[in-house]
């Protein structure tokens, strides 16, 4: 355990949010079991009020997830100096086996929280709350994930041991022979480039088609946008990062958030995350287009979401491509 202030901040924050989610899933179970919109009973009125509370908690959670994702990466970067041969966040995350799982579970929770809020938004627009039980089932899925995040992140931080001066230095030097791999194994570049542009193009095409026709192609679009999200993250590591760092071997997807690169990473990741949440949300709403009270509402929400996703993915691609073309760095030379 390293007593870095930011680590304590992350642990405290995630504990608080986890507790709030556990609290709201308690009411989630009640809603699933007892909800009856037709009734004017006091229990029903009480449950309806609880739904407001859960909505607030979830909106705060979404914000928290986003902020804590960045804080987590920042912290990993800030503590790299305490580990032998960790060069940046990528190296610190590799110090023990919980680092990268923590990053992934944070991303997943962010996507889920966003999807939940989209469903909630649609549901609150319909006078009979048709999705109420479904969204509370989803809440019961998110809560364990949040608990898992708390545990994995805690395990990562508790497992950190700074390589500081020891009185018997023999042990330290023997472990240092290999050091901690600070680089991330990168995928081959050319296939990744093809995959990245192909998936982005398909997503943009299907998104435009969906915006115009508003039919079952929403499923295709949603699936593609998630695929593009995954491919883009991989592409980030495989070749995009190289153009930003102008170094042939630096694959770290996190250093791009630093001041040295003009904080461009924020723009890229916000575009990517925003696109993924909107794309996922479009798909998540697809099955509910037939519900009578939602039939007027859902398509317009979906159109807006799909449009947002399109813009964000397009922005991401434009920034990346611009950098690839106008960077002085020539990758193929290496």
């Amino acid at each position, binding site marked *: 355990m390293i007593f870095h202030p930011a680590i304590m901040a992350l642990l405290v924050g995630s504990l608080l949010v986890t507790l709030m989610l556990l609290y709201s899933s308690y009411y989630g179970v009640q809603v699933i079991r007892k909800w009856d919109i037709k009734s004017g009973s006091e229990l029903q009125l009480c449950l309806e009020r609880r739904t407001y509370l859960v909505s607030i908690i979830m909106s705060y959670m979404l914000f928290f997830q986003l902020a804590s994702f960045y804080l987590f990466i920042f912290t990993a970067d800030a503590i790299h100096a305490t580990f032998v041969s960790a060069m940046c966040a990528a190296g610190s995350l590799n110090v023990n086996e919980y680092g990268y799982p923590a990053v992934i579970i944070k991303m997943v929770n962010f996507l889920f929280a966003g999807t939940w809020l989209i469903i909630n938004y649609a549901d609150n627009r319909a006078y009979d709350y048709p999705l109420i039980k479904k969204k509370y089932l989803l809440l019961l899925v998110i809560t364990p994930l949040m608990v898992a995040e708390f545990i994995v992140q805690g395990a990562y931080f508790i497992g950190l*041991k*700074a390589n*500081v*001066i*020891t*009185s018997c230095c023999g042990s330290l030097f023997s472990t240092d022979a290999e050091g901690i791999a600070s680089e991330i194994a990168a995928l081959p570049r050319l296939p990744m480039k093809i995959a990245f542009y192909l998936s982005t193009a398909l997503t943009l095409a299907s998104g435009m088609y969906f915006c115009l026709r508003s039919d079952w192609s929403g499923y295709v679009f949603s699936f593609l946008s998630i695929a593009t999200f995954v491919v883009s993250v991989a592409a980030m590591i495989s070749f995009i990062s190289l153009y930003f760092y102008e170094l042939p071997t630096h694959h770290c997807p996190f250093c791009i958030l630093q001041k040295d690169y003009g904080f461009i990473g924020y723009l890229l990741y916000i575009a990517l995350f925003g696109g993924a949440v909107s794309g996922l949300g479009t798909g998540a709403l697809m099955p509910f287009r037939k519900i009578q009270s939602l039939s007027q509402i859902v398509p317009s929400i979906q159109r807006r979401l799909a449009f947002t996703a399109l813009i964000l993915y397009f922005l991401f691609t434009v920034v990346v491509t611009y950098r690839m073309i106008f960077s002085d760095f020539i990758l193929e030379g290496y």
Partner: protein
Amino acid sequence: MFARKSNVFLLFMAVNIFLLALVFGHASYGEKNALPYLRGKAQMVKRIGLSDLCLFTDARYARHPSMADLSTPFQDHPMSLEHFPSGTIITPPPHLRSK
């Protein structure tokens, strides 16, 4: 007739944000400005061969945390809390904490 309260507040926040930006600006300006004199200090460290900051001069073991050995703390007194602040604020040297 009278200023809208929300405008007053937004103005207040704008001033705050401006001040924060000023703080950031001042910090990065100061950092840049301090580089030559930090380098001078670093040169001196090199010349004399120093290994530690001179932050805690109240006890011998607190003066050079990186040079301390297993027996340094408590050698002045078994209840060496007499050196209260540094004794609590800086750690016993890390190698004593890990086993």
